[in-house]
């Protein structure tokens, strides 16, 4: 009897260890760090996070501050100098400061939309796959419709009908991203629910909801994590694309809106310092999250390691 109680406790401990999100995160980071590309990606992302957090402290100017000469004239399209490290825009705003402030927008949109879409997608996938029947039918038809909507055109229309704001952008990105996660998680749950450990749990009289969240959910978490990582880079990219088209939040400066300003002012012709910094930062952030995703994917899908 005592031995049995002990083994039950051991099993519970294992389950608890597996479900601990913090542990999962740390273990994932360790594996990603072992992959050379993954390590580079991690370092870059940490740098961008530090940049976003420190922006209010280290940015010499506010995002919309106009820089003036001693004689009160505006410093327009200045090349990089000691006061304006990356020069100024045609309206006399400091490019270096805008770049720092822009990283906050990029990361906010990326992280919030990734979390939101993965939570919705995972829940839809879990319920749809586990319960099946009419619930599955309804949820999957909704997913079909979501897949039929082209993101950029739809987002442009919605934004032009509502007022453009960061919230609308984030909601739109979530709306675009959840559908893939839902389908992938669902197919995973379809195979998981036939496994012996689920039958065992059911035979032991475990409540259905508990089986779903306690026994099945931990097994799809690594996949959800993968889609979260993909979601961050997709969110960053989509926000930049919308802002570049002039449909972003006009009250904040993002890398996309900087590129929009530069493009409309024809800065590609004469002001490289205005075009390159936001473009390079955007590429670096998207690429580095892509490298992390890649390393992580190899971890949870060992088949990729050989091929």
């Amino acid at each position, binding site marked *: 009897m005592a031995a049995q109680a002990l083994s039950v406790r051991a099993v519970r401990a294992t389950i608890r260890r597996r479900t601990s999100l913090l542990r999962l995160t740390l273990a994932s980071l360790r594996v990603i760090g072992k992959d050379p590309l993954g390590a580079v990606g991690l370092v870059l992302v940490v740098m961008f996070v530090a940049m976003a957090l420190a922006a209010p402290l280290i940015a010499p100017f506010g995002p919309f501050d106009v820089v003036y000469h001693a004689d009160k004239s505006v410093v327009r399209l200045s090349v990089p100098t000691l006061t304006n490290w990356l020069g100024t825009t045609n309206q006399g705003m400091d490019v270096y400061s805008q770049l720092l402030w822009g990283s906050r927008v990029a990361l906010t949109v990326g992280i919030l939309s990734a979390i939101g879409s993965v939570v919705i997608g995972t829940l839809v996938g879990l319920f749809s796959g586990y319960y099946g029947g009419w619930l599955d039918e309804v949820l999957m038809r909704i997913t079909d419709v979501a897949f*039929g909507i082209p993101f950029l055109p739809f987002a442009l229309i*919605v934004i032009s009908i509502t007022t453009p704001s960061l919230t609308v952008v984030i909601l739109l990105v979530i709306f675009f991203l959840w559908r893939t996660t839902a389908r992938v998680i669902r197919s995973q749950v379809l195979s998981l629910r036939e496994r012996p450990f689920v039958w065992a749990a059911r035979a032991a009289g475990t409540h259905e909801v508990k089986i779903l969240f306690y026994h099945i959910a931990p097994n799809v978490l690594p996949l959800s994590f993968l889609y979260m990582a993909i979601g961050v880079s997709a969110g960053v990219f989509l926000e930049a694309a919308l802002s570049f088209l002039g449909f972003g939040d006009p009250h904040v400066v993002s890398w996309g809106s900087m590129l929009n300003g530069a493009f409309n002012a024809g800065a590609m012709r004469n002001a490289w310092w205005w075009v390159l910094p936001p473009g390079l930062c955007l590429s670096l952030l998207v690429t580095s999250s892509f490298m992390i995703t890649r390393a992580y994917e190899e971890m949870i899908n060992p088949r990729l390691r050989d091929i």
Partner: protein
Amino acid sequence: MGGLRRYILRRLVTLVFVVLCLLTIMFALFKLLPGDPTAIFVDNNFSLEMIDRTRHAWGLDAPWYVQYGRYMLNMLSFDFGTSFFQVAPVKGIVAEKLANTCAMMLPALFLSVILGTVIGAVAGWKRGSAFESGTIITFLFLRSAPSFFVGIMMLMVFSYQLHWLPSGGMVSPGSAGAFWDMVLSLDFLKHLILPTLVVFSREVTGPALLLRSSMLEVKGSDFLDVLRAKGLPPAAIIVHATRNALLPLVTYVAVTTGFIFQGQVVLEIIFAWPGVGRELVTALNDLDYPVAQAAFYLMALTILFLNFIADVLYGLVDPRITYH
């Protein structure tokens, strides 16, 4: 075969369902617009009676379900009404822009698939070579670079610094003519190079990476040993292997075409290409809603149709797949 037919039928029903839902969403969205469409059209000097007459002429005084029914019928029969701004039938405007978008997209896509397949097949066959690892690293980077920044960089270098290529448009100003005359002109080709390069640099990676991994799977198959035993030269064996590795590519191409189609908006803005995506942005800025709606609807239809084709082809190409 009965299974396949049922599967196609099921997909067709889903397709119609999705289109109907999409149109309903559009109807609801445009109903949510502040004010009604006459607001842009009607001047302050209009008398109340004139406003009523306009509303009546446009059918805006009918109950919403009548408007909904008319809307659905019009959209399904591709009758998009008249542009607020250009005072011309929307159908003609959008059809022309759609052709322009295809003129930009299809050559790039064609190049990407052909070259991507060849590169991917060779990389997969020469597993572990410097060529393979070089290709993978380069392509992974190309894949994650945001295409609109790549486009801006190309413009900066080739157009503004080197002055080799034009900075935008489909043809030089003043030389626009009939569609096919224009598309077959040298001037058009010059304008096409930069956008094609941008799309190619990204889209070549998909088929290449896909073909490489499916090639690795095919490489271990027994039928290749049979070919080798028959004494076929290595080049012929690669061709046989590639043919079998091509299966996943078929679906991929159809799905990707749909996907590039919606991402095209940004490139059309950068290269001032008069395509359907740019038309959508212009129409939204001008509050020209009939055009915006039609542009969106046609883009969505194209994507849905391509995805449908992808699913059907998937069933036709690989006889090993069974349907339930």
